[in-house]
């Protein structure tokens, strides 16, 4: 038995992607800007800065090889320019600096490989995960990354009530909010075990989709000066007060100085050790500058230490129009998600002057504008009909998905049948409604089966440019089949609040789930059935008991991908989407939404042929500037 399980483990390990390795005799080289520092003794030579087994990046590692039209080994130097609309969060940089523990190629949730962690093993019952760090891998200030940093994270950070009031869901069995937290066992300097009290096959998927390294490690040598248990009290008090906190708010200070990619452009990130390709070095009010991390642990196929580019800058723009101006002026090297679909013409026009090209990639992490019907809306009549499949099907048949695709998405999308009924058949819709007893009244509008008038509120905001046109079209289609739709415009900020408060009957909103395999549980179920969701989430403490249909959804399908081994994830995901489609839990008229991006002509090694735009962002370290 033991032999069999060992075999299984080996097979599992082998099934994972093996990343390329360097040819025999390759020597490491570094960026010229570091030469002076090495000569002056400030930095050790590159071979000593890299781990024994650095990650070799080539086409097929970060993104699939066929996505590259012109991959070349790069030259060092230059500064890449990014923009952001929020004080401390830069979308592109966030993706780049988000080094996951484990990665999947092109972010598609298969073909996993070790990223920050070199390797891992899974026990056959999926309860124990053994992770191996890279020997010799260092933080950006030169200190070794060892299991001391892992221990620190689990004991002093996750384990500290004030810092982490709730143990991270991802590190609980089954990724469930009520699951048991894992236990840590340090094996040696470079390996450790995490043990769960039940099978948790989907853990690897989560490590690759959500497992940014700061779930597992923190630079103990740096953070200890910020922790109440280890710092010198006087010094800590001084630091707290300098930032406007009292000593018993030390955890706020700790959070402030703990490096996260989300706040990469924040001033307090300067000096905090990181594992990303660039480190924050200055923040002068509007522009944050990032300098190469001399201890970055990735190389290219010829042994050149990555990244190629020396600096990155992120300029703060007060709103999206200002960003548009900068893009047109050629001041942005890659535009992440800043170009909305309806403005593609403007940016295409300016491509020559701005020295960039427009690329259309598929939008990864969300659908476009979908139609949600709130199963738990407080109206007995409404609940009576919305819980019937025929009602929902009628709505699906009533929508002309092709027209929506053309009008709202300018044809950049697919009125497909991944998640919904694509057929446009208003007569059938009418028949279905008649069939459930919603016949037309004297005023031409359909009534509820009990004869009471039926008025349906359709809420939408302007958070995305596609919401309003979609809402207008949907209202039109539904009125055409006799449903009395009242449109309700809601302020962006109010939308979420109302949705959480179960106040919306029908709404137009996006969804993460169906597309983004790496966020498979995040269908934002509060949009489709707020009260059921709270019940399920808080184990019956709040909300109301889900109906059989939604109960099945929550229990059997929502988190299903985390309950299976890596190679079954795809199939499980398909089942999940099929359930969604079979039951029309939400109606998603257009799929494969496109995100236009502008990439500066001078940027090389950018994956332009196919794939999702989100993982394009992550391919930051192998970009280089050709000037």
């Amino acid at each position, binding site marked *: 038995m033991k032999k069999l399980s060992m075999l299984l483990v080996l097979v599992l390990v082998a099934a994972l992607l093996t990343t390329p390795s360097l040819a025999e005799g390759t020597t490491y080289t570094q960026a010229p800007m570091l030469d002076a520092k090495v000569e002056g003794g400030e930095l050790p030579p590159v071979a000593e800065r890299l781990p024994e087994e650095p990650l070799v990046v080539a086409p097929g590692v970060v993104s699939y090889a066929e996505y590259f039209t012109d991959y070349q080994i790069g030259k060092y130097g230059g500064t890449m320019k990014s923009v952001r609309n929020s004080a401390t969060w830069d979308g592109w940089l966030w993706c780049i600096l988000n080094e996951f523990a484990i990665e999947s190629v092109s972010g598609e949730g298969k073909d996993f490989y070790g990223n920050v962690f070199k390797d891992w093993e899974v026990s056959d019952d999926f309860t124990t995960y053994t992770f191996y760090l890279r020997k010799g891998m260092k933080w950006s200030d030169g200190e070794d990354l060892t299991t001391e940093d892992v221990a620190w994270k689990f004991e002093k950070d996750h384990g500290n009530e004030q810092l982490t009031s709730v143990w991270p869901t991802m590190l609980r069995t089954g990724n469930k909010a009520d699951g048991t937290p894992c236990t840590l066992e340090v094996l040696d300097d470079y390996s450790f075990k995490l043990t769960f009290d039940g099978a948790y096959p989907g853990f690897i998927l989560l490590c690759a989709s959500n497992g940014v390294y700061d779930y597992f490690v923190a630079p103990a040598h740096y953070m200890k000066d910020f922790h109440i248990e280890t710092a010198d009290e006087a010094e800590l008090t001084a630091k707290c007060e300098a930032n406007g906190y009292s000593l018993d708010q030390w955890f706020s200070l700790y959070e402030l100085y703990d490096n996260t990619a*989300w706040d990469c452009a924040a001033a307090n990130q300067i000096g905090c050790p990181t594992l990303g390709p660039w480190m924050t070095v200055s923040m002068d009010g509007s*522009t944050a500058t990032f300098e190469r991390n001399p201890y970055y642990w990735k190389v290219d196929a010829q042994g050149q230490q990555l990244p190629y580019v020396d600096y990155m800058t992120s300029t703060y723009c007060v709103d999206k129009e200002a960003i548009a101006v900068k893009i047109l002026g050629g001041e942005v090297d890659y535009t992440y998600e800043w170009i909305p679909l309806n403005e593609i013409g403007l940016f295409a026009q300016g491509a020559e002057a701005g020295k960039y090209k427009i690329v259309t990639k598929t939008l990864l992490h969300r659908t476009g504008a979908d139609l949600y019907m709130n199963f738990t809306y407080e109206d007995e009549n409404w609940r009576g009909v919305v819980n019937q499949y025929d009602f929902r099907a009628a709505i699906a048949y009533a929508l002309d998905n092709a027209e929506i695709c053309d009008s709202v998405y300018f044809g950049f999308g697919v009125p497909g049948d991944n998640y919904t009924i694509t057929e446009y058949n208003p007569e059938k819709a009418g028949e279905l409604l008649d069939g459930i007893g919603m016949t037309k009244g004297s005023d031409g509008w359909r009534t509820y089966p009990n004869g009471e008038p039926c008025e349906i509120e359709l809420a939408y905001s302007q958070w995305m440019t596609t919401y309003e046109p979609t809402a207008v079209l949907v209202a039109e289609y539904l009125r055409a089949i006799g449903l009395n739709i009242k449109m309700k415009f809601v302020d962006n900020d109010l939308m979420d609040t109302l949705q959480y408060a179960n106040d919306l009957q029908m709404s137009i909103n996006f969804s993460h789930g169906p597309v983004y395999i790496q966020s498979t549980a995040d269908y934002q179920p509060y949009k489709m059935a707020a009260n059921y969701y709270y019940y399920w989430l808080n184990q019956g403490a709040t909300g109301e008991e889900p109906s059989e249909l939604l109960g099945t959804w929550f229990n059997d399908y929502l988190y299903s991908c985390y309950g299976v081994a890596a190679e079954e994830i795809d199939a499980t995901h398909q089942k999940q989407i099929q359930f969604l489609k079979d039951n029309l839990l939400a109606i998603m008229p257009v799929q494969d939404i496109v995100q236009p991006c502008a990439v500066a002509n001078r940027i090389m090694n950018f994956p332009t042929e196919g794939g999702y735009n989100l993982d394009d962002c992550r391919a930051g370290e192998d970009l280089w500037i050709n000037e």
Partner: protein
Amino acid sequence: MLLSYIVKRLLQMIPLLLCISVIIFVVIQLPPGDYLTTYIRQKESAGTQVGADEIAALKARYGLDKPVYLQYVDWIWGIISRGDFGNSFQWDMPVAVKIQERLPMTLAVSFMTLIFVWLVSIPIGIYSATHQYSVGDYIVSGIGFLGMSVPGFLLAIFVIYEVYNHTGIAISGMFSYEYQMAPWSWGKVMDMLPRFAVLVLVIGIANTAGMIRTFRAMMLDELGKQYVTTARAKGVGEKRLLFKYPVRMAIIPQISTLAGTFAGLVSGETIVSKVFNMETCGPMMYTALITQDMYLAGSFLLITAVMVCAGSLLSDILLSLIDPRIRFGKVVE
């Protein structure tokens, strides 16, 4: 006498500003949700789940788990006792630092705009009044009406478009990319000047137009007065007469509205600067309000209130100095 007047006015300002601070704080809280809601929504649309653990930690960190009035008291006490305006949620930095970054530029812009507005509108107003109904007057009045009716931001967009079309330069900030992070140098100043000038111009034009009309009206009023005739009858030359008498009198109401003008410039600056993406207070205050970055927004508004009060005091003092009929806020007869 003057000193005691100033002291009295300053003392009066304190309860006024306290009241204003309460109102500011309440109004900022009024929109539903808080900073966290924006933060969470942002993360979600970028593809990350925000777990309950994170939300709880953030709430504690930003003090959003305390009742509103306590948050207010913390804030105002911090300002009074330590000059600590609190922390900005967005930037994770003390508000004082953020304001300091942008205040000098804002003051410079507002001040220069004020001077620009005065320099332009007074001569034109005088010309318009003394050449009433002439061709020149109609032209200037026409431009004036146009300037008053075209919103500043529209003009800004237009300027950006035209400049981009003709020169390929996209104005989006006080400095071009090369000089953004560079230390101050002659080159940096030269880089900044045209953009600074454009900003002052666009903000100024709307205000100029209004001022020309007012000034013209005041001038016409004064020109018909008896003392002007007296001076003329004494043999004083027209030009001298113009500046010594009607202009002097017509300026007086402008000074008395200095506070309002200044406040108008600061708020007018917001929208135009936002369009141009300038590094002034306006856009930052706007974003702070939208994201409910409470302390940053509140502090900005408080500073604006202080500026208006100070401007009002200043204009009262100036008025006392310039118009002998008014001494320390009272008309002497």
